[in-house]
């Protein structure tokens, strides 16, 4: 009788863990398959599209992005992502990858800033937009490298400190902040595991997977989009792409992930 009761309790406790395990195992199996055959990652289609867009004349200026300076000199894509975010003297601000690409699209191609930040992310099931595809291409060109952004200039240090303060800021009708979900180890929302992002060990494991391919929405999601979606969940208004808040948060996360390997597009549920 007691044994039966114990079994029942064990079964009961085991059920949610198993459900989580099953879902996580399925994604892990998919990740394993992609590791064995990296070219089967659906996100690479967007990376390829991004590569083509890099050399395609576009915008009012009919210019390509080949002279875009991502920090390692005009046109240098290899390894550029691993050293971002960084301070850019020409723009006099710290920029992450997407913010810098947007800057290049404005300065070189002549796109209008207001147009670029209007509806910058795709609806579920739609492919990542052009800027996100280019970001994916650039990120892929740092695969295998480790995050090595120095973030030691005063402006960069200020961005990291600001990102940290924003991470802990609570706001909105649910009192949420990044910290609500990402300030402890082993927690989950429903069955979705949550990384402990203020802890370098966990940040190193996950930050380098973005831009990531999301199986649930069958699309690549960039880091700026990821943050926008977090603020949606926090019941906040729409976070502007390339805002100092998103750059600061990315600077803080990248600092925490320093030394972590870049492996994009990661695979997410």
């Amino acid at each position: 009788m007691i044994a039966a009761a114990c079994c029942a309790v064990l079964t009961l406790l085991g059920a949610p863990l198993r459900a989580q395990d099953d879902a996580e195992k399925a994604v892990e199996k998919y990740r394993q398959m992609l590791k064995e055959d990296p070219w089967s990652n659906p996100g690479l289609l967007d990376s390829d599209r991004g590569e083509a867009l890099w050399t395609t004349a576009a915008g009012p200026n009919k210019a390509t992005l080949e002279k875009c300076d991502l920090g390692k000199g005009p046109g240098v894509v290899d390894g550029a992502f691993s050293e971002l975010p960084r301070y850019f003297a020409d723009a006099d601000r710290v920029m992450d990858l997407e913010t810098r690409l947007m800057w290049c699209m404005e300065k070189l191609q002549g796109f209008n800033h207001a147009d670029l930040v209007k509806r910058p992310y795709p609806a579920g099931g739609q492919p990542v937009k052009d800027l996100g595809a280019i970001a994916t291409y650039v990120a892929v060109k740092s695969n295998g490298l480790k995050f090595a952004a120095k973030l030691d200039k005063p402006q960069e240090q200020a961005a990291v400190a600001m990102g940290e303060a924003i991470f802990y800021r609570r706001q909105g009708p649910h009192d949420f902040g990044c910290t609500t979900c990402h300030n402890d180890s082993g927690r989950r929302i429903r069955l979705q595991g949550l990384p402990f992002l203020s802890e370098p060990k966990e940040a190193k494991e996950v930050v380098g997977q973005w831009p990531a391919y999301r199986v649930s929405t069958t699309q690549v999601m960039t880091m700026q989009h990821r943050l926008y979606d977090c603020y949606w969940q926090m019941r906040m208004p729409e976070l502007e792409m390339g805002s100092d808040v998103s750059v600061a948060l990315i600077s803080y996360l990248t600092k925490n992930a320093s030394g972590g390997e870049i492996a994009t597009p990661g695979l997410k549920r």
Partner: protein
Amino acid sequence: MKRFFVTVAACCFAVSAQAQEKAKVDPAKVDAEIAKAFAAAPADWKPRLDQDETMKQCSLYRNAPPKNVAEEIQKRERALIKYPADGKLTGDWASGEKIAQSGYGLRFTDYPARQANGGNCYACHQLSKAEVSYGTIGPSLLNYGKNRNFSEADTKAVYDKIYDAQAAFPCSNMPRLGLHGVLTIDQIKDLVALVMSPDSPVNK
């Protein structure tokens, strides 16, 4: 359970000195950045950018306020709790289960509102045994009422925690669902029934 909270409280106070030290950015500067990043928000959304005193303190102390601040928060939040006019704190657990399941409401894609707001309790808590998809940000509430003999004092405490969690646990991760009007008083009563009613699947 009690020991768990004591341990948590002890940990909170231990890190508070460290947290105080770490808050090195002027909160006014953070507010200014937030205002800029959400500049395009409609006017009626702008109040969401602002923090009340409790949010400010929890942000500053990174959810681990020193004892005097914790007491201040608790006192302030307790005074904000409103009760049903008829004094009855429990409603319908079946309706409570639906509210606990729903995460709908107040996101920028939820307008115009198509249904009532949910409490999204399962996002963070285990409740009914049958629901295996639950989160672990908050403690398991399985058998919560049963373990407390369905007492009246605990029923009131549950109402208070749902209405304003910070009256019980300063800087708790849990939203102040009643205070912010995320849930109505009737919805909160239904959730109290879900947690505290002997007939509820939470206690079966």
